[in-house]
């Protein structure tokens, strides 16, 4: 199991937990359960976790697959710098967020799932992983075109005068040339 980047799995788990927290919170609020305030908190917490976890980080090795439309989220998350880059911080944030969910039945599942995600992030942080944004590659693959394309040559290339270039009938041997690429008939 040497090459596993735990952060990838932690990210999936955390995103799922965010959705579960959100769903539990909506049920709690809509059903006007007792302690619905925890459910209302869970709605907000769920949305926050989803926004934080939606942009996938760049993998150390191999191709990173983006989630659909994650670019704007990437930019937002990137702007928090070390707070979102460091996985220790994420582990503690998730651990903190999940606690109030444990006080109400509707949100307890989200709480436990987020706690597990927090533990996996901790494992990732201990192994030295960190979050890198996936940014679109700058298009440097095309060969840069020189500036002279805007200024075509004014004169024809230098060549000896026409007299010298004409093939002479006296010297057929000297006038003939050999094709560098062998020419064969089309089969």
């Amino acid at each position, binding site marked *: 199991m040497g090459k596993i980047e735990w952060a990838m799995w932690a990210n999936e788990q955390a995103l799922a937990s965010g959705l579960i927290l959100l769903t539990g919170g909506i049920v709690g609020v809509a059903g006007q359960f007792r302690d619905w305030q925890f459910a209302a908190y869970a709605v907000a917490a769920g949305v926050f976790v989803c926004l934080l976890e939606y942009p996938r980080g760049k993998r150390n090795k191999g191709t990173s697959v983006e989630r659909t439309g994650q670019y704007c989220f990437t930019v937002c998350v990137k702007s928090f710098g070390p707070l979102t880059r460091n996985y220790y911080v994420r582990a503690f944030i998730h651990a903190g967020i999940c606690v109030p969910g444990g006080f109400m039945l509707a949100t307890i*599942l989200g709480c436990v799932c987020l706690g597990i995600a927090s533990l996996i992030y901790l494992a990732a942080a201990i192994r030295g992983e960190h979050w890198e944004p996936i940014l679109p590659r700058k298009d440097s693959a095309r060969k840069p075109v020189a500036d002279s394309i805007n200024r075509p040559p004014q004169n024809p290339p230098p060549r000896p005068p026409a007299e010298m270039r004409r093939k002479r009938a006296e010297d057929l041997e000297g006038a003939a040339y050999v094709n560098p690429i062998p020419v064969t008939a089309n089969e």
Partner: protein
Amino acid sequence: MGNWIINHGLTYFILVVWMAINTFLFVWFYFLYDLGDRFIYTRHILGSALSWARAPAAVLNFNCMLILLPVCRNLLSLIRGSFMCCGRTIRKQLDKNISFHKLVAYMIALMTAVHIIAHLVNAERYYNSRHGDYDELSTALSNLGDTANTTYLNPIRSLSTTPILLVFTSIAGLTGVVITLALILMITSSMEVIRRSYFEVFWFTHHLFIVFFAGLVFHGAGRIVRGQTATDPPHDPKHCDDEVDEWGMEENCPIPQFAGGFPQTWMWVIGPMVLYVCERLLRFVRYLQSVQYRKIVIRPSKVLELQLMKNGFKMDVGQYVFLNCPSISQLEWHPFTMTSAPEEDFFSVHIRSAGDWTQKLISVVEQLPAGAQGPKMSVDGPFGTASEDVFDYEVAMLVGAGIGVTPFASVLKSIWYKSKESNPKLSTRKIYFYWLCRETHAFEWFADLLQVLEREMEERGMGDFLTYKLFLTGWDQSQATHVMVHADKDTDVITGLKQKTNYGRPNWDKEFEQVRAENPTSVVGTFLCGPAALASVLAKKCVKYTDVDPRKTKFYFNQENF
């Protein structure tokens, strides 16, 4: 439209049947709990949330039964074998077992969500009823069971029990939380990203299914969903519900009695669980059987060829085995397609360095002295996939992309042996083989095989039997120049084969047209081992070029994947 039916009809029919059963179960159990007289009092407290919890439970029973079946590899191979008589369309469905497994898993996840939400509402309503928040009848019902000789309806027995406490002190609640957690962990680690890149995480986490099934079987043991039982004289809720104070005192309204339903989940899942246990036992037995090395060859580009022998091992063309090497990893089994033909007395695999396990194996083998036996190896299998069907088709189009060319090594060798022996089982008259790869690096061994076959076929005057085209999709300018300069040579500069290498991707329309033109009345089987994108292209072409007229060319598409 007709083409679509020929190529996809049975798959969608099976899906429709499956959805129909799901829908039927949902609706049936919904109305059982919504209209049944036994549950009039239960519904009085819980409302329709009772039915919304029980209906998905029935669908969950059905799907948890189904989910283990598509992953019983040996069972599927057995079914495949016994259907050899019954047409390839049925056998083709068995190729899609993992897709079905995933579909059933999505249904389980969806129904779990509905089930949990409904029970959240139920727990809340039971709690409120216990605390007298609802009407007099509700409070009276909840109070039942507090004294002797009465059975309770409301599982919240004391005023201090919160919904959370109810969940963690009841069997149903506790098992429910545990199995839901197991399910969530299984699902997040099965996401494509994790599965493709960190297979071990997926594989080990997926074993949480043991926890899942254990909890599932006991989930109903607490009998927490309660309905009214018969009393003498009978208590009719429709008459007695407005005379709560008279219960027990009036003749026609004795105190109502309740009991929970008999747990049924185990009846649904016990069969597949037993089958799966047998499956794993078989794997363990195979692990213990001894495997000898006949030959170990290190091929160019660090490809390892292992020729192995095992007592009683019988293979078919294009099958694969799982290899386990305890000295590298006790628990990991890795699949490899076999590259030898069934006619040979050994079986071989070609292993490329593609990850931790393969790299370690190659380095262990490289350090062995010549002629020594390799590290202890266990073999599970063989397991069959689409390539077994190749000989049934008059004309076969084989497309191998990159590493996907491996099963076709077995096919081509077997064809060669069969044609040498004039085996009557070989209905194939013509084979078109398309080999696509970015570069021939790591596949020189396959080019060698093609060279040998090419030579032998020419010697026997069967040059027409096999037509192969190679496509190098990763050419660059220097290669193109090199080829231009040597364009006159008889054999190809890259592979040394008589057939010239083509550059870039094949034009499938042209290829299918050519096959159709050369075989106007045949059934053509198209076999692909390669990426999913190519599969959808080929599947579409098969549908496009198939004639509905049964006398004309028909293309069937088969796909292997790992």
